[in-house]
């Protein structure tokens, strides 16, 4: 209760009260700044009850989504299938495949030789979760993790599959999950964007699959809700930096004059939009300080750097981005979306995945434990996973040491941590071939529904009316997986 009222006040009081003094026009402008700003659309004018958010007390206030782009192989990381080692080289029985459609990359193969993992698996923690030796740090934190072994999707190619995960639709045009959260729940802070994006390139297959900026796009929502990319380098947010040679003092003075002249315009033309613009300039000015402050890791003590690994000192790496993600949620950024590229192991899987795993293992585990030690994990949801899994048979030639795996939509593994999910818990099961789900399937829309539920949103009620239709992140399906929730 306290939190929600604080949430409201944080977002509104300041502008609300400030603008009261400016009269009715000013008040209208103030409302443009609040998280409910988008209410002034075709949506709530017709149905005012549409956006009473959150619908119920949320378990998580913030999300860090660690997207592993390319489709990490569940069979090398978490889904232990000794049968595949026993049957290595034998053809995938048709009874198992059961007509599953194949991508154009392996549909031409006349054989589908099964292949088990080259990497050793073991059980860890009190939860006895299976993890391969590619992920030694993750193995140490399994008691914080909630594994879903039974993820499944409909898409078998990267572009539609990743778009599906991010927007609930395989075709482009809908808002990203972070945009939905920004629209529905608003900002928790006054100095940083609500929805931020961090990119890193894997070392396993540095150039494999591209990303598209529409993945963090606002779709048909207001562009106020688009993800803001934070980049390594001098200008972490596009156009953030003042021109060379301009002092902060001069920038402040310039803004004061801009405001003064704009207020004069407002007095003459009476357009409330002008007040809104003045406020946006002030937010921009604050961002010029708060963004570099967020990016500056100089104040991080040595033990924290050690915890995330030395890569965390190298801007633009996954480890550095994990550390930044923690700094962002500390500053109450609502939704942090990371992407780590390079998980598309069609060939040379063993050597590539070793590097990919090394990129992310230590920092992922560190992020979770760091959030925990700061008390942030309880209301921050961490999500780890890719857009689909990989086949249990080899793509291309299977040799003694080498193999590859094609895309597999029917089952793959993800995990979550914190934010109201069960720690030390594994959900769902695949068959001994690691090809089909035998227990508790979780569809992409189910995952989205569950994440929204944790954020206090009933995914069936949270809609945006666009071109006459009420759209949802989960389209027309999706069920909350209650078993995952504490």
């Amino acid at each position, binding site marked *: *209760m306290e939190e929600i009222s604080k949430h409201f006040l944080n977002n509104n009081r300041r502008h609300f009260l400030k603008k009261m003094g400016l009269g009715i026009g000013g008040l209208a402008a103030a409302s443009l700044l609040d998280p409910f700003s988008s209410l002034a659309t075709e949506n709530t004018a017709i149905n005012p009850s549409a956006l009473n958010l959150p619908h119920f007390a949320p378990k998580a206030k913030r999300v860090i989504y660690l997207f592993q782009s390319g489709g990490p192989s569940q069979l090398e990381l978490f889904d232990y299938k000794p049968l595949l080692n026993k049957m290595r080289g034998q053809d995938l029985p048709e009874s198992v495949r059961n007509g599953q459609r194949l991508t154009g990359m392996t549909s031409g193969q006349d054989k589908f030789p099964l292949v088990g993992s080259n990497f050793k698996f073991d059980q860890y923690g009190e939860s006895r979760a299976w993890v391969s030796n590619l992920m030694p740090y993750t193995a140490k934190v399994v008691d914080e993790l909630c594994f879903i072994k039974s993820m499944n999707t409909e898409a078998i190619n*990267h572009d539609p599959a990743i778009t599906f995960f991010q927007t609930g639709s395989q075709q482009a*045009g809908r808002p990203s999950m972070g945009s939905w959260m920004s629209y529905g729940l608003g900002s928790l802070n006054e100095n940083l964007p609500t929805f931020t994006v961090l990119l890193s390139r894997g070392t396993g297959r540095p150039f494999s699959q591209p*990303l598209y900026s529409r993945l963090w796009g606002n779709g048909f929502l*207001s562009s106020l809700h688009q993800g803001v990319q934070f980049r390594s380098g001098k200008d972490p947010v596009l156009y953030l930096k003042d021109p060379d040679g301009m002092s902060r003092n001069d920038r402040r003075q*310039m803004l004061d004059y801009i405001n003064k002249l704009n207020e004069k315009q407002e007095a003459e033309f009476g357009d409330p939009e002008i007040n809104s613009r003045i406020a946006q*300039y002030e937010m921009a000015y604050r961002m010029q300080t708060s963004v570099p402050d967020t990016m500056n890791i100089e104040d991080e003590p040595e033990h924290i750097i050690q915890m995330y690994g030395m890569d965390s000192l190298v801007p633009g790496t996954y480890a550095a981005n994990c550390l930044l993600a923690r700094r962002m949620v500390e500053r109450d950024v609502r939704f942090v979306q990371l992407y780590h590229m390079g998980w598309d192991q069609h060939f040379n899987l063993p050597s590539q995945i070793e590097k990919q795993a090394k990129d992310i293992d230590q920092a992922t585990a560190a992020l979770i434990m760091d959030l925990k030690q700061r008390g942030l994990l309880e209301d921050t949801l961490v999500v780890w996973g890719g857009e689909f899994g990989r086949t249990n048979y080899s793509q291309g030639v299977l040799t003694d040491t080498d193999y590859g795996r094609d895309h597999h939509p029917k089952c793959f593994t993800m995990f979550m941590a914190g934010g109201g999910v069960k720690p030390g818990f594994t959900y769902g099961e695949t068959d001994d071939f690691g090809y089909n789900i035998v227990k508790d399937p979780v569809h992409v829309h189910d995952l989205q529904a569950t994440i929204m539920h944790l954020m206090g949103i009933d995914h069936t009620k949270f809609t945006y009316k666009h071109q006459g239709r009420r759209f949802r992140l989960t389209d027309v399906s999706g069920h909350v997986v209650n078993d995952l929730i504490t």
Partner: protein
Amino acid sequence: MTDKKNKSKWVLALYFIIPFITVILVKYIIGINKDSYQPLMVGNKGHDSEKVEVAGNKILKLPDTVDFIFHVKPILSDRCYLCHGPDEKTREAGLRFDTKEGAFAALGKHLDRYAIVTGDVKSSMLVSKINSTDPETVMPPKNSNLSLTDYEKQILAKWIEQGAVWKDHWSFISPQKKSLPKVSNPKWVRNEIDYFILNRLDQEGLIPSEKAKKEKLIRKVYFDLTGLPPTPSDIDNFINDTNANAYEKVVDKLLASPAYGERMASSWLDVARYADTHGYQDDLERVMWPWRDWVINAFNRNLPYDQFIKWQLAGDLIPNATLDQVLATGFNRNHKITQEGGVIDEEYRVEYVMDRANTTSKAIIGLTMECARCHDHKYDPISQKEYYSFYSFFNKLEEKGRIEYNEIPKPNIKITPKEVHEALPFINLPDSINEVEVMVMKDEAQNRKTYVLKRGQYDAPQEEVFPSTPKVVLPFSDSFPKNRLGLADWFFSEKNTLTARVEVNRMWQHIFGVGIVSTSSDFGSQGALPSHPELLDWLAVTFREEGWDMKKMYKRMVMSSTYQQTSKVTPELLEADPGNVFLARSSRNKLSAEMIRDNALAVSGLLNNKIGGPSVKPYQPPGLWEETTSGQGLTKYIQDTGENSHRRSLYTFWKRTVPPPSMMTFDAPTRDLCEVKRQKTSTPLQALVMLNDPQLIEAAEYLAKNTLKAEGLSDEDRIKSIFRKITSRFPDETETKELMKYLENAENNFETSKKNYIKSKVTSKVEYAYTALTSLIFNLDEAIIKG
């Protein structure tokens, strides 16, 4: 659940709801409701209503006469059609409210029970259902997440009480050209538009605003018609021209200028989802710019709208088609195309055909046909079968779903200097390019059959269908050829109720900021209703009668007194009409993303006015393409130098997966799909672009330095000159004084700064101060407002 929990839940809800409602109420009172206006006062002056209701967030008066189209249908459509609408498969209890027969029919087996009994509220099941207190039987049902406000319930009841007069959906009835309405002040009227606008203002008890100052008016009309600002001498000439037709001369000049075609093309590129890349995955480059040049030329030569569309839809099918006409069909090849390894060819080919069908229907007749892809339309009377019948027009191409890297998708045409010379003189083919291949339409797969696709899936064909159109708009009679050319004829048939309305509405949106139908992409049941229905119809019929003459129609709009009003608004007027629906003033419309950059280039003197040619790559922050690429295709953005870095923004290279970032910040669409209306937002990221975009800083520096070069000017003269170039007016005394003060501050600040402002190109404190001052003026609200 325990009591305590219950209680805390309540308190919690209240904490949230009370301030929320307060905001909403205040919002309503001041009426920030721009996107959703529905005229509730048709045929009713609103002063003698019987009831004042507080319903949810609205305080509404029940109209004296409840109108089916304006009051009842929007409720039925939005809250009831999901289960009682056109889609038979999800229809409940056999009851439908989208047709008159259905709405008045007996309920199922109960021959004595009816949803609606004319004049008899008590016997009407609809009324008892919506007022039911039983959560099991109330309508809409609880699990639909839909509900009715008290106001809406009373509207439905009152409509029945008043006789339940049924009318067909307004946009499916032919537009009628009614005689011009009476107005209180004929002197104010300049042309037909003003009769309709003033008549409505009279009804609302509002009076038009005074005329805008000349310098404001000329600025606005320059941006609206050419997308560029007037020069100081343009302004002077206009101010000094005291002839009665001074303004008309300006308008004629603008309509005749080549920049007109660029401005109009810039909007059409959104509709046509034009881009310079294929859009999926590795997002490879494509060459479609010759089509873009065709569009610019078509606007400039004032190709009538019917030809403009006909050529783009079916130019290839016109008997003895010219190359010009064939090139126009590139319109429907602007959709995205994938090269991703492993995709299933047919899945994507189907996707492209759908894109063409969806784009065509949205752009030309304002219907969201794509909603009938997977099932019958939920709101409009369009069946899934009709959707695929419409789709079949676009399903005859010999094309691939997946293309290879570096493959130019077929069908296409080759353009060499010979073709340019002989048939396409408007194409700006650089000497360095010997030939380009541009995608066009061609029906080569005559034997391909079209089927209804179950749930829209490419591999689930059902019943075979043949080219046809939605009956509700106009049946596709045998007189039309069963191909795209026939479809084009159908669009422009005199009986087609939508085509003319949709286009004049979009033209109105270009000029006035918001369409007469604010949902310019949706003229169906869920779309907004026209704010001035009779004006819309008058314009639509006139447009057709005048031979679809676009320039003439634009001229009429900008010549009206309505257009020429000031954008100043009094608190009273703001309260009476916050969204400016009634147009008792001009709206303060913001420059588009393209205009913001073009304005800076133009006023600084950097703009290169060259028309057409391959897309260009002006400055963008380094690294954006590199960060996301897979290493294939366009991996690195290599910025153009020289004249191509200062071309108008509609020529900026459009990579769909990484579109130009500053344009995206200013609400440009991604060009993934057809878009007929841009968002209008105000965000902190926009402020950052305006303050720091090196292109804008460069323009500021260039303008500052040039101003300093002119001899014999005082600081005050210079400030006035810069201010006027950017805002089209002179600063007043206070503004000049403030800017003088800032100039002095900036000079002093230079001493403390690193003295390398803009990479050392600014060498003196005076240059620094003037550059900063110019940047300040670019950042004024007025600098990004048309007028």
